[in-house]
């Protein structure tokens, strides 16, 4: 009986249905520490505000998961998200009537940027790590051209709806649920299956008749699309545009912090950086954990520079954790 339950649990974990034990444990710890440090942590204001701050990174981490699962990595993700957000906000000019257009632009810019990355990686055969890093500067350059200084106005309806709640559930939480639903759709599609295959063993996938290049391109396109959603969440959360949102404090590396956090969330969530194993469920957990940790760092009154240091250290710790045999998901 127990044996059976354990087996189905591990099968579930493998398939990314149940976030891994590590994620669950870390999530409980960070929630507990947050609750201790902020006595009003469970107040409805605080819950809404927290969930609102989770969404951008959650969307970014799903984006990164999809790319990583397919055997790639996207170091331009943060810059692309920033670019999507500034393009969108510049078009809106606070006019609610332009909201549908702005949403389409944010998603479209994300998808187009992803397409560009995918084509470069799949057809020019450049190393994803270098190609996307270079692309991050391209996206950053365009961002600063479009919106050199923080500015732009998001229509009030967007920000208020975002911070609203429906029958007691914050809209932001529903957005996260919706994003997970979208991921589930991707996972269940033929493309999703091929994503795991290409990331798991490219040659085997090719020999099985999978269109490897097409799958790789699509992984970046999907990643960019989720990035577009992240961009909209940033706008809804902050109410205006900012080319330096998600940049590392004190640096001009546009979106750098977002990129690093998205990779950290993927790693904490148990997706293997070599590709082919894991899922977005864990990454969502990882994103929430990272957001809660930065809350803790904030409550503890640690200054900006040290916050960078701690963020970096967390990523290294998360990577190191995956090397501990007990935390590995599959035997080598």
């Amino acid at each position, binding site marked *: 009986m127990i044996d059976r339950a354990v087996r189905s649990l591990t099968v579930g974990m*493998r398939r990314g249905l149940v976030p891994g034990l590590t994620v669950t444990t870390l999530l409980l710890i960070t929630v507990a520490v947050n609750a201790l440090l902020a006595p009003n942590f469970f107040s409805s204001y605080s819950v809404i505000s927290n969930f609102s701050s989770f969404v951008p990174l959650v969307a970014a981490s799903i984006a990164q998961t999809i790319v990583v699962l397919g055997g790639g990595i996207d170091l331009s993700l943060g810059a692309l998200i920033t670019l999507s957000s500034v393009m969108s906000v510049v078009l809106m000019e606070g006019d609610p009537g332009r909201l549908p257009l702005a949403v389409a632009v944010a998603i479209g810019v994300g998808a187009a940027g992803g397409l560009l990355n995918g084509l470069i990686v799949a057809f020019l055969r450049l190393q994803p790590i270098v190609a996307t890093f270079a692309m991050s500067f391209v996206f950053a350059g365009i961002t600063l051209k479009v919106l050199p200084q923080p500015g732009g106005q998001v229509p009030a309806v967007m920000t208020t709806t975002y911070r609203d709640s429906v029958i007691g559930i914050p809209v932001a939480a529903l957005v996260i649920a919706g994003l997970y639903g979208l991921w589930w759709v991707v996972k269940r*599609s033929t493309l999703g*299956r091929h994503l*795991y*295959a290409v990331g798991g063993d490219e*040659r085997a*996938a090719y020999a*099985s*008749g999978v269109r490897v290049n097409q799958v790789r391109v699509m992984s970046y396109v999907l990643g960019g699309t989720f990035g577009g959603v992240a961009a909209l969440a940033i706008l809804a959360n902050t109410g205006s545009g900012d080319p330096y949102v998600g940049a590392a404090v004190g640096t001009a590396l546009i979106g750098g912090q977002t990129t690093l956090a998205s990779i950290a969330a993927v790693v904490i969530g148990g997706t293997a950086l070599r590709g082919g194993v894991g899922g977005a469920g864990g990454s969502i957990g990882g994103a929430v954990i990272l957001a809660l940790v930065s809350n803790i760092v904030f409550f503890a009154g640690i200054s900006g520079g040290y916050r960078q240091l701690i963020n970096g250290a967390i990523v290294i710790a998360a990577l190191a954790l995956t090397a501990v045999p007990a935390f590995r998901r*599959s035997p080598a």
Partner: protein
Amino acid sequence: MPFLEMRDVHKRFGGVVALDGASLSAEPGELHALLGANGSGKSTLNKTLTGVVAADRAEVLLDGQPVTLRGPREAQARGISAVYQELSLVPDLSVEDNVALGVEPARFGFVDRREQRRTVRGVVERFGSAFEGRLPLDTPVAGLPPGEQQIVEICKAVARDPRILVLDEATASLHEAQVRALFEALRDLKDRGVLVIFTSHRLEEVFELCDRATVLRSGATVGTVELAAADQAEVVRMMLGRSIDRIERDRTEAPEARRVVLEVRGLITDRLRDVSFTVETGEVLGVAGLQGQGQDELLEALFGAARISSGEVRLDGKPIHPRSPRQAVRERIALIPGERAREGLFSRRPILENLTLASVGRRALPGGLLRGARERRAAGDAVRRLQIKLGRLLDPVLTLSGGNQQKVVVGRWLLTEPRVILMDDPTKGIDVGAKEELYSSMRRLADEGVAIVFHSSENLELVRLCGRVLVLFEGRVVQVLEGDQVTEDRLLEASVGVDQVPG
């Protein structure tokens, strides 16, 4: 009009001719074997048919219609699917997902999981007895033993509902019950009108399973035989061709006072089963067999690069436990790999550096400082002993011919002053002249008293150089041929597991 016809298939890989006018003709509902010795072109012909290798020139007709096959996808679209020697499974995906990979039943872009399970289960159930009764559909393939992985690979090919199924050494990692299950499934496919092209190094299996066999030799088709009317000896003779009566031998004469240098007893590794032998000073001991019977693993185990689970290795009577190449080098054992070796050369760096690399620590001053004169002397010594033809020691290695580059690799290990040199098919892919040069270097080393264990995929080479040859079959030494017994016929017979060919 035959169902499948391949005519005049030519393929070269660089300077090596793999196929030189091979042909094959087969009918639906036939179990057709493809036979030949090492390097006869079986695998290349298979891969031409499955679109993995693009032939230089070929005519392929299906149902009398000429077809071109670019890539495995196109071959699959024409109903040709294959089980390759190298597995094409994605380790992290489940058995079910692997079997369905690339042909998932889909509705509106979504995998129809119920339909997928139904079809995959239908295929895997046919091989039920190969999985010890259970159906591991949800297990990731990485968690299955090699034999079961191989069966999954076969299920995958069968699930594509092929008209032609190509099996290249698909039984190599299967145990008896699995082979039974496979044969049953293949006969079933035959009854449904599928053409199965079957390659196996186990001749008995071929005779048991197949209707006809096409025999290849040196990249060309020798003939096609009805197996029911043929015997094994006849087929072996076709594989071998006219036997060579006398060939020049340059085996080393036994020097006075030979003594055993290396003694191996009961060696067991993942792929070796109870291997025992000895090598003496000045001896060139041959290691023969069809490809992949454990030859590589034997050399790697002695060099500390493959795990030894039990058995004893003695060097000059003293037990040694080679656990890493570094340790083996310290015991003065050297491994000279074949084609990979030349890749291991630093082609733009000077010959001198390439020669001295492995032994540089022995000559350095404390603290690691090198003394130029000693380095030059050492390199010069290797050049002399191996008669490497070069311009200057400081020229880059890439200025040398292929054979001389290979000698640089030998020289690199020679400078570690080895007592035993293990050679893993060192002449593969080098031209005839270069081979001759390497043979004379080997002879000279043996005369100096070095013991050489020489694995070669070319039996003729073994006949020329070795006074004694171990023949491996599925990880066991099935025969040890000595002196006049070392002939091409005997080597091939022993390799395919035939005891004696009469007449």
